């Protein structure tokens, strides 16, 4: 039997058996919860009378009422707006720095390349909660070196944990934590560019800046698209950093980001149905934004190839 199979190349069943563990885990911990979230978002708790006694509270179909409620909820919309502002700061700054550092690492005659690469990558190994905690202390007037220095110089000390400065404070944590990983992704792509490309450019008399701008950046565009994609997804779901900073300031509400609102609805207010609806909305917006961007980027790349 085995000989017969071998003669016909790969057995048919083997790949499916190899994929069984992943398939099982996917079904249990991805597909089932997603389906369940969709189901929950279409249900609601109906309270009869005063809501006392057994049978007074029952789960019924809600249609899309949880969605219309969520989409017209000013608390959620405010949170979405805050995350939009936050994302407009974080994503360009983080990817801009990642690209800059990657280009610098890739340029000639750099000293301390191994050290700086590792140092900039280091925050990747620091959990978001701990990063927020460390920066939180650095923002806190009583222990911050910034405030210590300003105080010693007799200068006014900014409050980094309220108002508009809070966006800067939160964005800084995300930029600090995410730049290194993105830098590695871009740097890897830069190093894969064949040397002949540079030789030709040098013979044509291109300067380092021209090489970076005209050759390196266009050639790592796919990596930039990929890092952008993951950064947007991560940004839309921001949760850990603002949650960790909350004990240090009064300016962060429990519903600062849409994701925090989901937690608040589902686990604090106990309304899992509206929490599920909000979660589905965040997922749909994430998909729409990321795939919309991919299509846009793909169409552009194709146009450039056709030129």
């Amino acid at each position, binding site marked *: 039997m*085995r000989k017969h199979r071998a003669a016909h190349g790969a057995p048919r069943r083997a790949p499916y058996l*190899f994929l069984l563990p992943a398939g099982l885990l996917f079904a249990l911990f991805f597909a089932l919860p997603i389906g369940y979230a969709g189901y929950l978002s279409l249900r609601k708790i109906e309270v009869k009378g005063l809501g006392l006694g057994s049978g007074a509270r029952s789960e019924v179909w809600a249609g899309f009422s949880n969605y219309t409620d969520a989409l017209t909820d000013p608390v959620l919309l405010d949170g979405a707006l805050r995350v939009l502002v936050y994302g407009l700061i974080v994503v360009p700054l983080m990817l801009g720095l990642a690209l800059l550092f990657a280009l610098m690492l890739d340029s000639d005659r750099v*000293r*301390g*390349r191994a050290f700086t690469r*590792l140092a900039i990558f280091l925050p990747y*190994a620091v959990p*978001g909660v701990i990063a927020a905690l460390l920066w939180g202390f650095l923002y806190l007037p009583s*222990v911050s070196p910034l405030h210590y220095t300003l105080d010693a110089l007799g200068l006014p000390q900014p409050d980094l944990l309220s108002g508009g400065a809070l966006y800067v404070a939160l964005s800084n944590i995300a930029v600090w934590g995410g730049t290194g990983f993105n830098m590695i992704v871009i740097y890897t792509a830069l190093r894969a560019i064949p040397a002949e490309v540079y030789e030709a450019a040098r013979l044509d008399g291109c300067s380092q800046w021209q090489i970076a701008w005209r050759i390196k950046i266009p050639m790592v565009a796919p990596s930039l698209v990929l890092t952008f994609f993951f950064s947007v997804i991560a940004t839309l779901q921001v949760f850990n950093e603002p949650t960790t900073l909350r004990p240090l300031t009064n300016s962060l509400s429990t519903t600062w980001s849409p994701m925090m609102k989901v937690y608040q609805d589902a686990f604090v207010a106990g309304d899992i149905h509206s929490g599920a609806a909000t979660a589905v909305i965040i997922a749909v917006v994430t998909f729409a934004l990321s795939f919309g961007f991919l299509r846009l980027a793909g169409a552009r790349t194709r146009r450039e190839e056709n030129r």
Partner: protein
Amino acid sequence: MTAPTTTAPRSGRRGGWLPTAVLFVGAAYCLLPVVWVVMAATKSGSELFSTFTFWPGTGFAGNLSDLSGYRDGVYWTWMANSALYAGLGALLSAAVSAVSGYALALYRFRGRETVFNVLLAGVLMPPVILAVPQYLLMAEVSLTDSHLSVLLPVILSPYGIYLARIYAAAAVPQDVVEAGRMDGAGEWRIFRTVALPMMLPGLVTIFLFQFVAIWNNFLLPYIMLSDDEKFPLTLGLFTLLNQGANTPALYTLVITGALLAIVPLIALFLFIQRFWSLDLLSGAVKS
């Protein structure tokens, strides 16, 4: 480490002082909070608020024993839990990724690309949409507030499978697998004895990637766990900060705890630098 492209002569006479300066500024920015926490952890409670922040204090031993004494050493329980979740979770994750990536790279079968794409779509799934129903489903089988509730959902790593497929395609030649079949070896044996050793460097990367992801995870344990004997470090430190925000006396505990929480991962990366390249993280397979 240096790319072959950097050896060619360049037109500018001055060396690369500008890139070097930019990189050192970036490195200083990234090291700043780490240097701060190292310094702050050496200060006693009163020194923390009175001395210059980037100057070491004299209270490290005291802070350490305070932290170990806090609620009968619950901090070390958190550390052990984190090690368990991240170590076991990453190991299982690397194993599942290895078999899946191998199957996707070396077999041609119906629905291969569909399976791959569906698994990859998991990367895009916001944890938030999973977290609420995952909690409720865990509650159905009475698994909330258990070690399993934070371990099981993190085993499947779409990014790990993606990397494993790339590594398997690059490292395991189809001919070698065919030769194994000619010798009459079963599919499982070919995978275990031939393909697995070839994929090992890539699997180390998946292990590391997943170890960091689980070690850094906060949302899942935050939702699943209520008994602080089962908390990982991130959640434990968060609750400590929550209690300590109004009691500056607890600040030193939080700071010392934060330092000790980042030491293992930083040590791991420094150690592994010698025989493992960061580039592998982004799926680069060429040496």
